């Protein structure tokens, strides 16, 4: 007879873990500082990314020829030299695509390879497969392309004037904002340009396509949305979904940049693999990655606001104009989110929020941590500073005054009631712990005594809506197996990009069975294990996949309980999962032992799990509903010092208080907060995207595009989680999402820079400081105030 694997019996288990475990927490370790599941491998160079996979037999390398024009008809494309180049095995154009030629993720508009015209510099024209990465890159440069240049739209202003939009404008209206503004004691209006942001994931875009025996394709990709890659590959190849398998073990960073824009490279690799019958890898060199993939949308926003003598807003009009690039991509939802977050944490009263989706001849801008939310919030944070300077008050006072109330003034401009609002408590607590008032005083004094160096400080809050605003995406699946040695295999629809999702979901499953978290192995996200998954985006990874995995684990656990009751004649209440053991009445089995017994008694030890977010609904036509299950909140105090002769600056101290509900893993959550803050700070300070007048990106490599380096992190960096704050909504272990919300805490640095600049004119004028606030912009803001004085 076949034998089962030897397992430890209950008696051989120690109680060590029980001693270590906290009361009410248990062995899975939900709520504790578990290390990232890949950490040991990552530090040893053993973690495998797509480009690290051993080459497949006969593997070829793909590359694409790129448009050199921002907008043009293609008159002719001579690829003879490309075809003749060393190492080239295959060259394809859009004519060779058997299925769909448009791979727009939501709306059409993204040709996989150019169809007769080009709409941005860097647009893929044709693709080659060659025997090496370098030979493929060299070959594509040999194409001779003749263009008929067309007029290009390269500024948001031009797009607005020409009504060049990728999607129709949309408005959210409450009451009569015009009358309210006019009736208010004070009126202000202004505008702000908010720069975009390159994702600069350290691992660039990469996919490998491997043809399978039945005309299908296996794809190994670095993508936040394996199911969409599966769909698009199937569509371009004109084959059914069940012939495409997408495998995504881990990404070297995503940040939104691999939500939709990982797919084109997978599709092109698949097309070439299909043509050649050989595996094809396509990875983008950094410079091409920066030129050819979309970024955070630059926005140009304007407003008119009316407020009372205390500084409380009575009426407001805000227009947000997103630079979407040449195609819709996700821009409809991104500009919607900018509109939803035009309030940030504040009650807008009578309001009209308009969002335009401007079409420009640049790369199609895409998801990026915050998804338009940050660009929307910038306007209202600007307004807070403007009102404060206008009335001669501390901006913090104005921010507090305008916060959403608890019982009244608590309904957003899209009719969602802000429930469980804890921002006033968070701000109060942070104001005290950061010693804001005393430092404010000291800074004002310092500035009075120093003519060259000036300091600034600001406290800004964040309220961020959690859920996909596209309702059907708020679902997730998971698959859990228990093997006969008691180890557990976990698959879920989410993808690991460093955020610790796999670690948290493994903790949740381990918690359910009360086993060590090491017992659970989380596999690559694979479309054949969990189908029809949503992108890992919108901060929803743990909320959705954690619940789905918990459901799967609960199903298996219930089967084990039912089985125990039947087999050992006990009540369900007498079956306990504890310390790697299953206790049945008076008997104790190790979890592994009990799994074997269950197997021998033909109990299914595998289950799927499913979850959909409750309570959410939204009527876009009416602009009313509850698009968000809950809000994630937090606040930040940052202090900066600037040099008024050069515009150089430094963030000297940052204090953050973030509400993550009951944290599933505080170490991972703190890592998310710190990293998000620094990324947000980079967006608003040194990260400058520069396009020239022909629409070519000049900041196209890390030598010219500067993300924060180690010296830019605040020297004094204090991050705390709101204690004892379980999410009142029934989320997974009452935790809260953490991926995006702290990104916007970086706004405190921008506001602090303005505070420092404002000191030059005794805080009487609010400096204009568009972002990114490079040393150049800071210097010119200083000079403008000096000449104004």
């Amino acid at each position, binding site marked *: 007879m076949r034998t089962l694997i030897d397992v430890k019996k209950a008696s051989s288990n120690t109680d060590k873990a029980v001693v270590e475990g906290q009361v009410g927490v248990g062995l899975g370790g939900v709520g504790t500082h578990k290390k990232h599941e*890949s*950490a040991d*491998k*990552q*530090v*040893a*160079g*053993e*973690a*495998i990314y797509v*480009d*690290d996979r051993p080459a497949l037999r006969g593997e070829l390398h793909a590359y694409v020829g790129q448009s050199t024009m921002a907008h043009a008809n293609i008159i002719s494309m001579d690829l003879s030299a490309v075809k003749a180049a060393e190492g080239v095995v295959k060259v394809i154009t859009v004519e060779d695509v058997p299925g769909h030629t448009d791979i727009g993720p939501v709306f059409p508009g993204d040709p996989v390879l150019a169809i007769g015209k080009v709409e941005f510099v860097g647009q893929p024209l044709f693709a080659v497969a060659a025997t090496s990465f370098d030979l493929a*890159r*060299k070959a594509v*440069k040999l194409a001779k392309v003749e263009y008929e240049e067309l007029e290009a739209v390269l500024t948001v202003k031009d797009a607005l004037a020409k009504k060049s939009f990728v999607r129709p404008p949309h408005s959210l209206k409450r009451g009569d904002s015009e009358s309210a503004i006019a009736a208010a004691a004070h009126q202000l209006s202004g505008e702000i340009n908010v720069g975009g942001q390159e994702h600069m*994931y*350290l*691992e660039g875009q990469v996919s490998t396509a491997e043809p399978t025996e039945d005309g299908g394709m296996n794809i190994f990709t670095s993508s936040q949305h394996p199911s969409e890659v599966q769909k698009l590959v199937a569509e371009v190849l004109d084959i059914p979904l069940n012939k495409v398998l997408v495998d995504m073990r881990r990404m*070297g*960073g995503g*940040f939104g940049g691999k939500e939709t824009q990982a797919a084109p490279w997978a599709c092109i690799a698949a097309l070439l693999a299909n043509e050649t019958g050989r595996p094809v890898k396509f990875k983008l*060199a*950094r410079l091409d990655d920066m030129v050819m993939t979309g970024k955070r949308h630059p926005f140009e926003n304007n407003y008119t606001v009316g407020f009372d003598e205390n500084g409380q807003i009575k009426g407001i009009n805000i227009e947000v104009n997103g630079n979407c690039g040449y195609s819709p991509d996700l821009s409809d939802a991104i500009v919607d989110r900018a509109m939803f977050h035009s309030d940030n944490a504040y009650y807008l009263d009578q309001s009209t929020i308009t969002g335009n989706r401007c079409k420009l001849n640049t790369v199609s801008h895409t998801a990026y941590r915050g998804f338009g939310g940050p660009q929307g919030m910038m306007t209202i944070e600007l307004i807070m500073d403007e009102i404060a300077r206008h009335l001669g008050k501390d901006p913090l006072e104005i921010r507090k005054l305008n916060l959403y109330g608890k019982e009244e003034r608590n309904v957003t401009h899209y009719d969602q009631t802000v429930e469980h609002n804890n921002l006033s408590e968070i701000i109060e607590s942070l104001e005290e712990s950061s010693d804001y008032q005393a430092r404010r005083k000291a800074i004002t004094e310092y500035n009075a005594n120093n003519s*060259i*160096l000036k300091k600034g400080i600001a406290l800004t809050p964040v309220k961020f809506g959690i859920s996909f605003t596209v309702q059907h995406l708020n679902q997730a699946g998971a698959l859990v197996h228990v093997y006969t040695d008691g180890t557990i295999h976990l698959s879920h629809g989410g993808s690991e*990009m*460093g*955020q*610790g999702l796999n670690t948290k979901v493994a903790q949740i499953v381990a918690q359910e069975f009360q086993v060590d978290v090491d017992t659970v192995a989380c596999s690559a996200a694979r479309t054949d294990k969990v189908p029809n998954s949503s992108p890992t985006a919108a901060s929803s990874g743990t909320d959705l996949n954690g619940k789905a995995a918990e459901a799967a684990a609960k199903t298996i656990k219930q089967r084990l309980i039912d089985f125990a009751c039947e087999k050992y004649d006990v009540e369900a209440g007498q079956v306990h999962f504890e310390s790697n053991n299953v206790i049945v009445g008076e008997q104790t089995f190790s979890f592994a032992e009990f799994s074997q017994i269950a197997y021998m008694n033909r109990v299914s030890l595998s289950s799927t799990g499913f979850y959909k977010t409750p309570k959410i609904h939204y009527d876009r036509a009416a602009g009313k509903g509850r698009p968000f299950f809950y809000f994630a909140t937090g606040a930040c105090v940052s202090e900066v010092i600037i040099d008024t*002769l*050069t*515009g*150089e600056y*430094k963030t000297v101290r940052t204090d953050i208080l973030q509400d993550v509900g009951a944290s599933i893993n505080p*170490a991972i959550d703190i*890592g998310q907060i*710190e*990293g*998000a803050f*620094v*990324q947000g700070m980079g967006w608003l300070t*040194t990260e*400058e995207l520069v396009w020239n007048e022909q629409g070519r990106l000049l900041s196209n*490599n*890390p*030598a*010219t595009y500067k*993300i*924060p*380096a*180690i*010296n*830019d*992190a605040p*020297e004094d*960096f204090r991050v705390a989680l709101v204690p004892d704050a379980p999410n009142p909504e029934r989320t997974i272990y009452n935790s809260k999402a953490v991926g995006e919300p702290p990104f916007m805490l970086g706004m405190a640095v921008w506001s602090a820079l303005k505070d420092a600049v404002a000191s030059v004119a005794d805080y009487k004028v609010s400096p204009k400081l568009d972002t990114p606030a490079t040393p*150049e912009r800071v*210097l*010119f803001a200083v*000079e403008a105030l000096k000449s104004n004085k």
Partner: protein
Amino acid sequence: MVANTIKFLMNNELVEIENIDPNTTVLQYLREEQFKSGTKEGCASGDCGACTVVLAELSNELDSENKAQLNYKSVNACITFLGNLHGKQLITVEDLKDGAKLHQAQQTIVDNHGTQCGFCTPGFVMSSFALHKHNQTPNRDEVLEALAGNLCRCTGYRSIIDAAITSSENAGEDSFAKHYQDTVATLNELKKLPTPILNGNGNTYIAPQNIDELATELTNEPKSTLVAGGTDLALSVTQNLAVVKKLVYVGNVAELTTIEETESEIVIGSALPYSEFIDTLHHYYPDLGDMIERIGAKQVRNTGTLGGNVGNASPIGDMPPALIALGATMTLHLNGTERTILVEDFFLDYKKTVLKTSEFIKSITIPKPVVGQTLKLYKISKRLDDDISAVLAAFFIEKTPTENGQKVTNVRLAFGGMAGIPKRGSAAEAALLGNNLTKESVAQAKAALATDFQPMTDVRASDKYRMTVAQNLIEKCYIELQSAYTSNVIETRVVNN
């Protein structure tokens, strides 16, 4: 005598290679030839540090017991040509574990939750490893200096700093310490080998060992490309897909890799990496030492050289303005004949120099400071570390006390980023020379600077910013030179003071 191979230690294994294109980078070699994928490619341009590996090489200096010692240097594998490995020990992230046990440089990152996506992690591990090989108890500043060339997009760095700052005093002996004497012995043997050559794909790499060999090589093949650290040249290969037919590596040329001091001068070999002369320069010119700490990052300073930075003749190189302001000279060598010129006279036009065919830079000579002289340096860039200057200002001012103040008797105001070549602002200098340093003379110098330069607008800065900031730096320098400010120096990059 030459040998058609290069030899190096791959961790503890002696490797001899031939028939590989010398345009191959160490990163390509590791990933594509050795199938070692632990070292990552983030940018292939030396900007992100994900590919950081460590090269151990014999130090020029003996240790306190007069024994040969190893220098552990972090370098960017993506912009290091394969041939440069000759005679060294290459250590990658895969080599650090001792059996199943993580190295301290790895374990501390795990313990501090310093990985998220993990793609930058191997690079941080290697930079931290190299740091601790020389300094087991680094302070925060030393950690930042060692890790500034490693970008992380996920963590915000706090956790990584906490990891690297952890003392390694009690970490125990790692495998490199255990093999230390063997490594020294092997590298000493490799030193005795004939001049290494690497041929492949019709291209050649040669590493002459002395100045005569180098001069002969260049005379015989004037179209050869000189390479030292390769921190700029390699980008033409990895970014522009250029192929260099003949690479002549100067880093092994004995006469080009020395630093000597006379009573009045410091003579630095053109192929000596920054990291080996920064301390000397910092001693005599603190501003210069501080500025060099902001050239590239540690990995670049471990391989980059003065000869490269000057010879490259980029308008945005950071050393040329400093050298011009100091009145430094350079010695050029052409087939046995040497000439000495002012660094200032080296540059003719954008990327054009007085260097003749087959001529090369042997050394740079910097005068030591004397009483009454001041050197002030300002590097203006978007980011503090690892960024190319929008403007680099180097001010040398010599003053003599007079009855009614301090008369400027000698002045050189040199700028990078303001013109097609590094250049002095002669009109601004004229406004200061012979006058007392006063608010008025400084205002005149600022105004005069507008006639000296017509800077350009590019991705780093606008013309207007360049001019404004260059003018303001003259004022800043003036303020800093006032005695009242000596205790309140306005640092190049603002600090909390």
